[in-house]
């Protein structure tokens, strides 16, 4: 019998920390941007604590800074987060058995924690991975926000460090194992193409949802080898 060692896999911890570090940098830039846009400190920190969705937070602050109304900002932010509904469907079983814990874990659902957990299947390791990634990201995102709000203009643009390339690369790396299957590859390619085509035409968040239409090629007509 193998020794159990720890509940948390060393490699998973290291990988989650790498993601969290990048999230911290972006969190700092969010804090700085919010401060520059005149968002009160407490409000910016509350956004990171209670919304905990980077894309929506940046979008809401940008809409308000551009002179958009509160309703427009809210609608834009929520639209960007609609993707969490299918995320919850797929990763819901990887959170917890009991509802109080499940309600808490639901708050930690972000693109990275979903991909991080899915990459580890659906067992105990996937569950630990979900909490590990989600909670580390939550801590780093919020610490980053506080640092950013306080440092303000002293925070450098994260694009200088290429952090904007790190996230899609990380997500793709997490997705690669699931793309070994031909049907997943087909659906993924179609989803990417559709989302890119839709981007110039639709508001933020919707192109990614349009990617769901990639499911139409999940099964090719006359495809028999896939019928497993």
């Amino acid at each position, binding site marked *: 019998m193998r020794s159990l060692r720890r509940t948390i896999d060393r490699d998973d911890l290291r990988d989650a920390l790498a993601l969290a570090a990048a999230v911290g940098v972006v969190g700092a830039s969010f804090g700085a941007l919010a401060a520059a846009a005149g968002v009160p400190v407490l409000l910016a920190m*509350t956004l990171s604590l209670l919304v905990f969705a980077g894309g929506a937070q940046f979008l809401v602050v940008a809409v308000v800074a551009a002179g958009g109304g509160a309703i427009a900002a809210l609608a834009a932010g929520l639209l960007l987060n609609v993707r969490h509904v299918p995320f919850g469907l797929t990763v819901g079983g990887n959170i917890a058995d009991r509802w109080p814990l499940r309600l808490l874990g639901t*708050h930690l659902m972000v693109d990275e924690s979903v991909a991080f957990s899915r990459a580890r299947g659906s067992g105990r390791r996937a569950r630990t991975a979900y909490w590990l990634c989600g909670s580390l990201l939550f801590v780093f995102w919020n610490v980053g926000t506080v640092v950013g709000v306080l440092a303000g203009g002293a925070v450098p643009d994260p694009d200088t460090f290429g952090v904007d390339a790190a996230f899609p690369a990380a997500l*793709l*790396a997490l997705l*690669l194992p699931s793309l070994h299957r031909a049907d997943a590859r087909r659906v993924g390619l179609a989803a990417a193409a559709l989302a*890119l085509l839709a981007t110039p035409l639709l508001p933020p968040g919707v192109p990614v949802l349009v990617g769901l239409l990639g499911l139409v090629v999940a099964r090719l007509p006359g495809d028999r080898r896939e019928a497993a």
Partner: protein
Amino acid sequence: MNWPVVVALAAGTYALRLAGVVLRDRVRVPARVERYVDLGATALLVALVATAAFTDGSGFAGWARPAGVAVGALAAWRKVPFVLVVVLAAATTAGLRYLGVP
């Protein structure tokens, strides 16, 4: 930016996160449908990768970012450790920008 907006955004976002979790708990999903739920998540995540790699707002992000993502993707495909994938992607993009590539 005011408190009602922040509270509404927080409540709305949590509701969206919870919706899928509750639905999964309440509805017995047959294996056939389960496959589509799984493929749907793949579709969403790949679409996220594509838009994050190539676009900024409603336009093209410039070449530095997709180049970095491509290097990261190649590294991941070659089974390079995850941390290195992240660092290679960021370093490539940062290096290209330093050289003046948008």
